């Protein structure tokens, strides 16, 4: 009777399961290069996606909208309102008897909601200690890369109207 197993120094289990985990985990240079090229393709597709989005994103419209009565807010007081769309939260601050400023409430760093600190006279972001000047929205401290977008205001009679947004391009520091 012939033996079923050929003579071998290896234990039986190794002959029957001849899979070597080291070999399985081995990645050749060519495989690695292929993976890098695929990653490169992914980056290119990402850039194309941004390009397509930029073509199909409509320019935001800024209709005039009443946001508050002028006497509604005390000096140093704030009011949160939505402009230009119901998704865009903004903050109105009365800085003087006849002085009002309004900004987008989204921090330019990671979009946390900023609040007005009357004590420091500035807009502050609680997430990463960013701070913006209440005078012009410029960055005073922290990681925000850009100034807060400013809401353009007009006073019509006793009403405060938002009439547009001013996005400030520079990462100006106050």
């Amino acid at each position, binding site marked *: 009777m012939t033996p079923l197993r050929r003579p071998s120094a290896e234990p039986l289990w190794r002959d029957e399961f001849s899979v070597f985990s080291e070999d399985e985990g081995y990645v050749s*240079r*060519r495989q*690695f*290069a*292929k993976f*890098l*090229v695929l*990653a*490169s*393709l992914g*980056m*290119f597709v*990402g*850039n*194309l996606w*941004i*390009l397509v*989005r*930029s073509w199909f*994103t409509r320019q935001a419209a800024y209709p005039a909208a009443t946001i508050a009565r002028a006497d509604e807010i005390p000096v140093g007081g704030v009011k949160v309102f939505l402009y230009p769309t119901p998704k865009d939260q903004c903050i109105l601050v009365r800085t003087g008897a006849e002085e009002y400023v309004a900004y987008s409430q989204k921090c*330019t760093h990671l979009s946390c909601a900023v609040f007005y600190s009357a004590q420091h006279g500035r807009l502050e972001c609680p997430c990463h200690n960013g701070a913006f000047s209440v005078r012009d929205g410029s960055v005073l401290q922290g990681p925000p*890369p*850009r100034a807060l977008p400013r809401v353009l205001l007009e006073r019509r009679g006793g009403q405060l109207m938002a009439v547009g947004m001013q*996005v400030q*391009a520079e990462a100006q520091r106050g």
Partner: protein
Amino acid sequence: MAEAREPEQKKGLTAIDAAMALIVVLLLVQIWLLTTTLETFLAGYKETALPAAIVSGLLFGACIGLYLFIERIDLERRQG
């Protein structure tokens, strides 16, 4: 005979390693380009999207070129 081929193979491996290092560098530039373009796009600036896509495409083309180079060298060295 096999010993004579060794320096050739080593040269081939060096070329492949260099090409791979270059692909990594190009990929890093592409990653930087994508994050910067996304950042500026989300900030409301759309002018950068087209040049960034063109440059990213060129970098991807260069990566493919280098990959084909690796394939060619590998094939040549294997065939001797």
